């Protein structure tokens, strides 16, 4: 096996210094949201203007960024709108923010984003009215929140065009596979593609006399299939829904191609966030393989919650000495001996976990290879509650190196 590359030589700091878009992906519960916020803060402290966008309900992020105290306990009032975090909380940071630097946070509400996008696309007021009143559209709209990937990309793309931020960090929804994100734009355009539109546009609209007979044999069979699946009376509404999109299809396609290019841009970086454990490891490998296969700009792994056992490891040979010390500290001889044995057992249990974690880290370092990052974050005892804690976490992920604002340079 190849010797794992020393982590310090390829810190995440390097990615933070240069990338314009960082996509943090990984399966659920590995600490993506906190990692994204910590990375964004770290980059802001290095002097960049940064936005972190989260799709999760984002309680963690809101809490860590101190937004809960500002906005009360509910979600922020303005989804899809960047909210300034720094310099508001800058006084709590270990050192002052460089001039010009900023940190914004934004929460995605996919159904609101979808509505805004549809309205933007359907420029014509009459057409917009038709769509907004269509019952298929109205029934679908709330369910769009279930696939927020595309709208996150769309929002980031819009903000990128405005040039307000040097770096955007995207905290993706939990993924078992990267396909959801990578294909998000393709998926949307295939949902509303030429063939779907052409096909549905042949269904007579309410009040129209056009019958199925004018369709080709294949289409009329397909129509009969759809009719049998859903009942014929639902078809006109579906047809109207798709019909409304006919004119805007080229616009939508341009847009989805642009977001796709953005994901593959030379200044975009994917980070896979993961944690120890066979399941996480398996899923991180799977994601990695997909990113590689799609030739996406993969920057490396961030391995959270790695357990490090107390050093030097408690040893059975120390039991008499420990028991004596506990006895001197006030325990009865028998209690002292029992306590020493119990604590040794706990130490051995924790050591086993730490050994397993070290192996997992090593296997990810190997997978990352010498050209990619593999940042290790040691398991903490508590949650992140303050921006100062977030800053210290960010420093740990970034390889504990001071970022140098003068060396900021954009890749490519």
């Amino acid at each position: 096996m190849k010797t794992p590359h020393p982590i310090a030589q390829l810190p995440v700091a390097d990615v933070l210094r240069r990338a314009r878009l960082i996509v943090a992906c990984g399966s659920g519960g590995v600490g993506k949201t906190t990692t994204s916020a910590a990375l964004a803060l770290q980059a802001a402290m290095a002097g960049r203007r940064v936005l972190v966008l989260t799709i999760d309900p984002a309680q963690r992020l809101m809490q860590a960024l101190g937004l809960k105290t500002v906005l009360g306990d509910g979600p922020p009032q303005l989804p899809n709108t960047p909210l300034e975090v720094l310099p508001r909380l800058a006084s709590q940071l270990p050192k002052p923010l460089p001039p010009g630097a900023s940190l914004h946070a934004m929460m995605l509400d996919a159904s609101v984003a979808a509505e805004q996008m549809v309205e933007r696309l359907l420029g014509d007021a009459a057409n917009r009215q038709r769509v907004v009143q269509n019952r298929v559209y109205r029934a679908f709209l709330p369910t769009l929140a279930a696939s927020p990937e595309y709208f996150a990309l769309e929002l980031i793309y819009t903000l990128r065009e405005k040039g307000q931020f040097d770096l955007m960090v995207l905290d993706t929804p939990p993924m078992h596979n990267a396909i959801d994100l990578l294909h998000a734009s393709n998926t949307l355009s295939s949902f509303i593609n030429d063939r779907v539109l052409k096909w549905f546009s042949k269904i007579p609209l309410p009040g129209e006399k056009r019958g199925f007979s004018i369709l080709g044999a294949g289409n009329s069979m397909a129509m009969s299939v759809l009719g049998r699946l859903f009942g014929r009376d639902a078809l006109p509404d579906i047809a109207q829904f798709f019909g409304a999109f006919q004119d805007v299809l080229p616009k939508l396609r341009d847009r989805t191609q642009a977001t796709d290019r953005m994901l593959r841009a030379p200044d975009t970086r994917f980070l896979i966030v993961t944690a120890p454990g066979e399941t996480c490891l398996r899923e991180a490998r799977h994601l990695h393989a997909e990113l590689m296969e799609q030739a996406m700009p993969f920057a490396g792994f961030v391995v959270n919650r790695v357990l490090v056992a107390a050093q030097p490891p408690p040893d059975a040979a120390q039991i008499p000495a420990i028991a004596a010390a506990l006895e001197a500290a006030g325990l009865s001889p028998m209690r002292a001996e029992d306590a020493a044995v119990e604590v040794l057992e706990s130490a051995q249990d924790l050591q086993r976990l730490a050994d397993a974690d070290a192996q997992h880290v090593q296997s990810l370092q190997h997978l990352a290879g010498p050209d990619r990052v593999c940042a290790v974050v040691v398991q903490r005892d508590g949650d992140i509650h303050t921006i100062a804690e977030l800053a210290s976490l960010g420093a740990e992920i970034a390889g504990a190196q001071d970022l140098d604002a003068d060396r900021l340079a954009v890749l490519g």
Partner: protein
Amino acid sequence: MMSQHAPPPLPDDPNRNVNALLDRELLLVTGKGGVGKSTVAAVLARAAAEQGKKVLLVEFESISRAAPLFGSHVIGPEPRQVAPHIWAQSLSAMDSLRYFAIRQLKVPALVHLALRNKAVEGFFRASPAVRPALFLYQLWTTVEEHGPKGDHHWNLVICDLPTSGFVAGMYAIPNMLSGVFRTGPVATYAEGMRALLRDPARTGLTLVTLPEDMPVVETLELRALLLERHGVDAAAVILNAVMPRSHDVDVLDALDRAADRDPGLLGPWRITAERIANRRAKALSAARRLREMLPPNTLITLPWRFERELNLQAIDELALALRKGVA
């Protein structure tokens, strides 16, 4: 004086809570990522199988986590027996689409033809609501036809759901379908699905969480959201990974004093004991908080294990521990 009657059950008897949960037809197991949903689903499956129930364990749109556990590499769309009394099934959206289409059209050849049509495929693949709708359709028909009210092939269907967002989306499906399809077959299905999901005697919503601040808060929020929007309360909240042991206060104090005198020798021992004791204290406080907020007899606890990968033996030990409770 001895009573003829059994003593009244304790206010929170884990064994009774577990039995009540397993008596349903369908369990929807969900929670934030990383809380151990799949582990809990497997533990519940083994606990039910132990009682002689025939169980179908269903996964959706994920790399099968049941497969490595049951030593079976191919768990696919067809239910397959993986252990005594346990069958497993792993579904993708396309699997559920094919299932739906074949049942509706009756003619498999027609289905293959229809699914080859790029427009049809694009429509089904991409529409965000379609995936949970198709999955729910398959789940519903499976429970109706093969559950206790059907041919009794399975007593219990346990569903390991992808994310808590997915389950919220799934509960919204019947209303969405009724909004689009007012008559016709889909309208009828929507009624059936709604009836199954909303009947607490048939379907048990099972929320899995961890003894940490945010997961507990998020679990309570998810419960409140489903209760408010869909009138469905959690049948059980399973607090996973509860540190089962601690070190006594006198030991911690003695370690503290001794480590102050000889930090070189005692330091690592003190850190170890404190870590364990802190984890235990945190778990107890999470359990207390959940009990305060949840209806009685809803909380079930599972012990933490000092392992990163659980094998079937570990799952069985957890299934036993489930009935005893650890906090």
